[in-house]
């Protein structure tokens, strides 16, 4: 991970780059366009106040908070297993991935480690929720750029993963399956074979998406060179996940600082980066990540060890006094929970670091000088989930 050498020079670079994109000499009286909170391109209730000069965006300011549900406060009055059901709803497209870092933080405080079989299944389900999340991104981004069919294909093939998650956990969207010290249940019979089939389908879906959308000339014309984020700027805004890897920063928490309890080192996979940093790069990196996730799942399914899925933990969970921060590479980027415990049934304080909030903070910088259709490309490719922004 390269550090930002000089914040002053970065902001000067950023200001110069944005000014170059706006033709200030011919600026006429602008128009303020209020996009959202019910705009179709905002995935929910994000509002963007865009000042326009013709079709060119002079400034775009995202306004979030329409969906604030107060999770950090709610966690203070709930026991640890109850919180697990709650935080499923943060990134609702890849729900299982929300549970894992919180459970890992609690395990770290308690000094418990899940049995190997549970760690394997955890990693498999984690990657499956990544696929469920990103495959919808691929379709939805196509939908936002006007390619209707891609969206339906994504919904169709995402079913394969959701069915697997459902048959293992009982919940399609909100599994609530992870427990401190392991998992709620073992896998059902025949699940491994059907998961192999689902992953094969998903790889075929990735090829189809590459043909239909990513390789399309119009798609490339709409995304290449649009919304370029240099690596330094992305780092200074705290971007993470595929958005940062698309700017050429080779940084993945799964490989670089994988917390104990996940077994990414047991599979052979690759972190993809792209040098361009534009909307196309972000889409391309996500497509490759979906493939890698399918690869990880396939490999782990073959090496899954036998044994119990639950370690010995007390029936009533009291977490000893202490503080722990655990972050994992979630579908949207770095997601971490800072858990402060006073040795009680409920945590004293939980700070949630979700990726989308940081990922949209760069919108004012990157949207300046873009056209209105480019703003849609930028918002779509930065890929945020409203529940992940507002919590």
């Amino acid at each position, binding site marked *: 991970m390269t550090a930002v050498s000089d914040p002053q020079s970065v902001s000067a670079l950023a200001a110069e780059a944005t000014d170059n994109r706006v033709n200030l000499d011919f600026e006429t009286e602008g128009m303020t366009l209020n996009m959202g909170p019910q705009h179709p391109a905002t995935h929910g209730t994000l509002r963007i106040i865009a000042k326009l000069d013709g079709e060119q965006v002079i400034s775009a300011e995202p306004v979030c908070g329409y969906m604030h549900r107060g999770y950090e406060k709610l966690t203070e009055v709930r026991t640890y297993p109850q919180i697990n059901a709650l935080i499923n709803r943060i990134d609702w497209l890849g729900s299982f991935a929300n549970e894992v870092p919180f459970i890992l933080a609690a395990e770290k405080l308690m000094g418990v480690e899940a049995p190997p079989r549970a760690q394997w299944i955890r990693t498999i389900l984690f990657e499956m929720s990544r696929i469920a999340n990103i495959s919808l991104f691929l379709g939805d981004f196509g939908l936002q750029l*006007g390619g209707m069919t891609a969206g*339906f*294909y994504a919904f169709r093939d995402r079913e394969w993963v959701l069915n697997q998650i459902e048959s293992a956990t009982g919940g399609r969207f909100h599994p609530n399956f992870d427990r401190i010290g392991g998992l709620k249940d073992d896998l059902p019979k025949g699940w491994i074979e059907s998961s192999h089939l689902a992953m094969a389908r998903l790889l075929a879906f990735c090829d189809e998406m590459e043909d239909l959308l990513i390789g*399309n000339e*119009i798609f490339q014309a*709409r995304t290449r060179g649009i919304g370029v984020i240099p690596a330094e700027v992305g780092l200074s805004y705290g971007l993470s996940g595929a958005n940062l890897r698309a700017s050429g920063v080779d940084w993945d928490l799964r490989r670089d600082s994988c917390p104990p309890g996940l077994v990414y080192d047991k599979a052979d996979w690759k972190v993809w980066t792209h040098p361009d940093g534009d909307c196309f790069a972000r889409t391309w990196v996500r497509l490759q990540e979906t493939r890698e996730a399918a690869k990880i799942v396939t490999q782990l399914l073959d090496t899954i060890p036998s044994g119990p899925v639950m370690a010995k933990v007390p029936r009533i969970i009291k977490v000893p006094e202490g503080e722990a921060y655990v972050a994992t590479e979630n579908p949207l980027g770095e997601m971490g929970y800072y858990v402060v415990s006073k040795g009680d049934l409920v945590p004293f304080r939980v700070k949630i670091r979700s990726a989308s909030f940081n990922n949209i903070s760069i919108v004012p910088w990157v949207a300046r000088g873009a056209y209105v259709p480019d*703003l*849609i490309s930028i918002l779509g490719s930065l890929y945020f989930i409203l529940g992940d922004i507002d919590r």
Partner: protein
Amino acid sequence: MTLLLAASFDPPYWLSTLIKVLVISAVVPTTALILGMVFLFKIMSWMQSRLGPQEAGPRGTLQLLADGVKFLQKEDIAPDGADLRVFRIAPLVVLMSTLLLYVALPASMHLVVANLDVGVFYVLAVSSLSVIGVLMAGYGSASKYSLMGALRAAGQLIAYELPMVLAVIGVVIQAGTLSLNGIVVQQADGAIFGWTGIGFPYILTQFVGFFIFIAAVQAELTQPPFDMPVAESEIVSGYQVEYTGFRFLLFFLAEFATAFVFAGIAAVLFLGGWAVPWLETSSDWYYVLGPAVLFAKVMLVSFLIFWVRFTYPRFREDQLQSFAWKFLIPLALVNIVITGILKVVL
């Protein structure tokens, strides 16, 4: 016998005008319904691996009718700041442009409302009238999204109207006539290197023109990849955003009826129109065969148009401009030059 009677039926002027008005006002919604039903609902569903409407009517075939009835029941809402007169007339202007297009479309030698000697010229002229209605809708709605959509539509008009005209000129040069019926007769009487089996459909020589014409039609209909004026993910359906109920239905009817009539014009110009190869163009059988043949060809061209619509993402407005001015127009000009030279030489 009945055919002969139909052929010799010569009503007075007022009666024939009345019949024509009634026929057009029945045909326009019917064609829009057929295209909407077949392509927007069914073919699109199958392309996107879903079933489409299933409940209304046998296999959901009456869904669009049910939707139409639903639209009629909706309240007619106008925004507060709207210029009411302009806002209310706008859908009618758009629909009027469509109705005017149907006037010149020949379904056989005599099954045409007005057999104009300058049919091609007339069609290209009235087709651009719809943009006036779009601009009125955008201005009258008093909404920023509507305004942007209308301005995009106006910008688009200038970009695609010229390639469309230039693409048709190749056909006109080859046929030597501006009459749509004349072009059909020319194609039916033509021969491919002396073989008169299927006449001479102009798509064989004017395939470049056909491509440009279909691309321009796509832009005229504001369909993907050129649907920037109604882009629902950017400007939330553009100029249509403030319309409800019946007035929205008028926009919908106009869009699909225009798709039908443009597919018909493409069929007439490039695919031989209503003519059947082995039948003389003066035959009375065309009272029955003409509409059927034309309808089949229209469905073929429509399939092409809608296939592209369901597959491609949309361009940006400035990308359409450069596509039109830097690619389509030079291509069309080259096509005209080559057609002209070959016409003189051969």
